[in-house]
């Protein structure tokens, strides 16, 4: 908004100064023709002219330099339009003059001066416009040096206005020197034509036309002004003569030279435009391939982009991309060629026994054109093939085809090779990202499985007056398959189970939930522990996959008869502390884990055992995580350590024993970072 207001002010200043110039110049001229001493000082119009120049200079500076959206052709168009307006007005004046004919009015000095001042204003406006536009073009790709030179040129020109305002007779020689310096600097600056390269073919043609007309306008305006000033000069020397004005002359030379230079450079650049455009397209294509990794949803779109970009970069007539997902699976993406045609060529090259990239054997890209010559019925005469590598593994081949023989050059080979490399990287990144995503999903799954597993363990254990009970379970980062539970059968009977599912992860949690279901249905009734195992085995055979099994021990405590019946199916032997003898022992007996024998013979591999318990006796149930816990040296916690810890535990409550055991276990392993599941269940009889 502010710059808009300033540009308006500058424009009005321009108009006012121009009017002031008109009146002062006419008044002085009139006085001099009539040989009266003018009322105004003769140097006044010169100063007003310079003010006019300065206001226009800043007006265009703001208008052109601040406009970010202008492109090169827009700039040229603006200059052209300004020139057109100036020329049309000037021609209009000529027409009026012509229509009026050779009268006293047209011959009158005031009329001629009016026409002259109008033309001068138009010319200066046109020059300033062109100056501002050329500045932008010259400084398009600027260096420090260029910026300094331009600053020198611009400031130098403005300072020359001061020189023009006062006619220093003593420094007459300065005039020639200044003009010479500005012309030379202008010439040097005119060498900056980098913007031309960024025009496309159409823009170049438009620019040529605009520049040509601009040059014509310039020449016409120069001619008009110089003839007008000459005709007035013949009558009187006291008028605003621009022909000795350093600023205007320098500007005329500079603007004209740059216009002509630009025209010629664009003209000579025309034939090579397509090359530059192609390079630009390669860069854009390359970017597309690089970016495809962030935006594309599938490998397939990366393949399609590779195909498209390669084709457009080398102007191929057709192309295909063969991807080998594995040894037997091939996928083909084609461009302007049918699958059949592609396979014809592939098979032809195979039958010719070409050891190129098509047979995935060679690492080098090869021009296989000579082999195509022998294929009848194919319209293609040139072929270029590239392997695509992902993590050093050849995943496919890109083949480009042309109808003309020998039409792929070295440049094209390089470009497409770069593309296929980049595509390989994109696909690799894509796969890595997918893997990471998969891992994330797997982790999420584990989290759920762990939650399920935790929820399967009982929060409250069955209580009885005859014993105290405590249980503890801790699982590693991965989900384990430790399970324990209690269930009251009737007033005197309580069943207890401890189990360990082989394997880890979601399947372990799944099997654990099956075990829980089996326990809760079978332990409802008082059945022999061995019968419990036989039935559980029978049920599990249908759910456990090959190689999976569950080890378990099932107990029924009878508080009336003070007996414990149990069956051990491959689970860690129970550690039993006898209060009478103050010693403990492992109850070793026969028993095969559930799921190992998958037929009716299982009953012969399991047995029920029975023994009496006495007050003070302790029964320790655990999983192999306890005995197999390792210390820093790799030694296992083992059965002996467990036994001696329980021997120390006389007088402790089950939860105290449990804490003691856990502390000892952590102390032994020397880390709280466990890599297995620990589960213990301790029953102490009263």
């Amino acid at each position, binding site marked *: 908004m502010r710059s808009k207001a300033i540009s308006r002010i500058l424009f009005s200043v321009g108009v006012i100064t121009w009017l002031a110039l008109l009146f002062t110049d006419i008044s002085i001229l009139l006085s001099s023709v009539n040989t009266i001493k003018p009322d105004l000082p003769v140097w006044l119009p010169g100063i007003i002219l310079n003010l006019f120049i300065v206001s226009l200079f800043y007006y265009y500076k703001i208008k052109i330099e601040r406009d970010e959206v202008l492109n090169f052709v827009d700039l040229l168009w603006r200059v052209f339009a300004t020139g057109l307006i100036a020329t049309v007005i000037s021609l209009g004046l000529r027409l009026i003059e012509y229509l009026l004919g050779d009268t006293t009015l047209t011959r009158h000095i005031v009329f001629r001066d009016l026409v002259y001042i109008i033309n001068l204003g138009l010319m200066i406006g046109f020059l300033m416009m062109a100056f501002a536009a050329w500045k932008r073009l010259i400084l398009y790709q600027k260096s420090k040096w260029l910026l300094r030179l331009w600053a020198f040129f611009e400031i130098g020109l403005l300072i020359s206005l001061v020189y023009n305002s006062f006619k220093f007779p003593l420094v007459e020689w300065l005039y020639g020197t200044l003009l010479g310096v500005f012309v030379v600097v202008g010439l040097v600056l005119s060498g900056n034509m980098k913007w031309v390269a960024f025009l496309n073919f159409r823009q170049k043609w438009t620019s040529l036309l605009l520049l040509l007309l601009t040059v014509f306008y310039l020449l016409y305006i120069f001619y008009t002004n110089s003839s007008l000033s000459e005709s007035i000069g013949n009558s009187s020397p006291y008028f605003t003569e621009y022909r000795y004005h350093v600023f205007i002359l320098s500007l005329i030379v500079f603007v004209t030279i740059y216009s002509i230079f630009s025209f010629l450079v664009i003209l000579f650049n025309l034939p090579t435009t397509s090359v530059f455009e192609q390079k630009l397209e390669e860069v854009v294509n390359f970017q597309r391939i690089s970016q495809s990794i962030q935006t594309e949803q599938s490998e397939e779109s990366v393949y399609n982009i590779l195909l498209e970009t390669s084709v457009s970069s080398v102007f191929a007539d057709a192309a295909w991309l063969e991807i080998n997902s594995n040894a037997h699976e091939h996928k083909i993406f084609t461009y302007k060629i049918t699958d059949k045609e592609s396979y014809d060529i592939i098979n032809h090259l195979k039958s010719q026994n070409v050891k190129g990239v098509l047979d995935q054997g060679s690492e080098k890209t090869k021009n296989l054109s000579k082999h195509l010559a022998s294929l009848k019925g194919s319209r293609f005469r040139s072929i270029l093939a590239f392997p695509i590598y992902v993590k050093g593994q050849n995943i496919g081949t890109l083949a480009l085809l042309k109808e003309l023989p020998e039409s792929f050059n070295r440049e094209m080979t390089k470009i497409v090779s770069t593309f296929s490399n980049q595509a390989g990287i994109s696909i690799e990144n894509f796969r890595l990202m997918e893997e990471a995503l998969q891992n994330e999903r797997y982790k999420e799954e584990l989290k759920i499985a762990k939650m399920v597993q935790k929820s399967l363990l009982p929060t409250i254990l069955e209580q009885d007056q005859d014993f105290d009970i405590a249980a503890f379970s801790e699982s590693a980062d991965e989900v384990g398959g430790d399970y324990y539970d209690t269930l009251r059968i009737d007033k005197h009977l309580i069943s207890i189970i401890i189990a*360990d599912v*082989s*394997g*880890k992860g979601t399947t372990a949690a799944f099997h654990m939930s099956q075990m829980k279901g089996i326990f809760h249905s079978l332990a409802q009734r008082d059945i022999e522990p061995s019968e419990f195992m036989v039935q559980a085995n029978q049920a599990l055979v249908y759910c456990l996959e*090959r*190689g*999976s*099994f569950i*080890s378990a021990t099932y107990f029924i405590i009878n508080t009336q008869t003070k007996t414990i019946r149990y069956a051990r*199916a*491959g*689970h*860690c*032997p129970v550690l039993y502390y006898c209060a009478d003898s103050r010693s403990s022992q492992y109850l070793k007996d*026969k*028993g*095969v*884990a559930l799921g*190992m*024998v*998958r*037929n009716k013979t299982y009953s012969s*591999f399991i047995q029920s055992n029975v023994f009496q318990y006495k007050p003070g006796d302790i029964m320790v149930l655990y999983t*192999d995580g306890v005995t197999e816990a390792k210390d820093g040296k790799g030694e*296992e916690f083992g059965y002996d350590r467990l036994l001696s810890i329980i021997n120390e535990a006389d007088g402790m409550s089950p939860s105290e024993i449990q804490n003691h055991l856990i502390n000892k276990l952590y102390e032994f392993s020397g880390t709280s970072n466990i890599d297995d599941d620990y589960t213990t269940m301790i029953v102490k009889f009263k």
Partner: protein
Amino acid sequence: MIHIKRLQEDGADVIALIGEIDASSSIELDLSIAKSVGEGFKKILVDCSALEYISSAGLGVFMSYIEEFKDRNIKMVLFGMSDKVANTFSILGLNELLQIGKDKSQAKQLINEV
């Protein structure tokens, strides 16, 4: 980590297990037994003398072949186990299901029994 060596002796395939078998290395054990079966061996001896540890997953591999071997009349005998490894087998009850010999000569005797 497990290292598995295979060599043939008197018409039997001897699979030597060196190191530890855990969940990930159990796959290798499975593969080498499957390979031996695939090559048509009817007698398989598993040398466990250098086996330091076997996890439940490793035991599961042996277990998974029991029925198949019975059906196809393939004999497998394990031998040379350390006490610790033997204990792992016996706790699960696998000693009831698999033939386990003390040493190689006993294992050969076992495998040649009809």
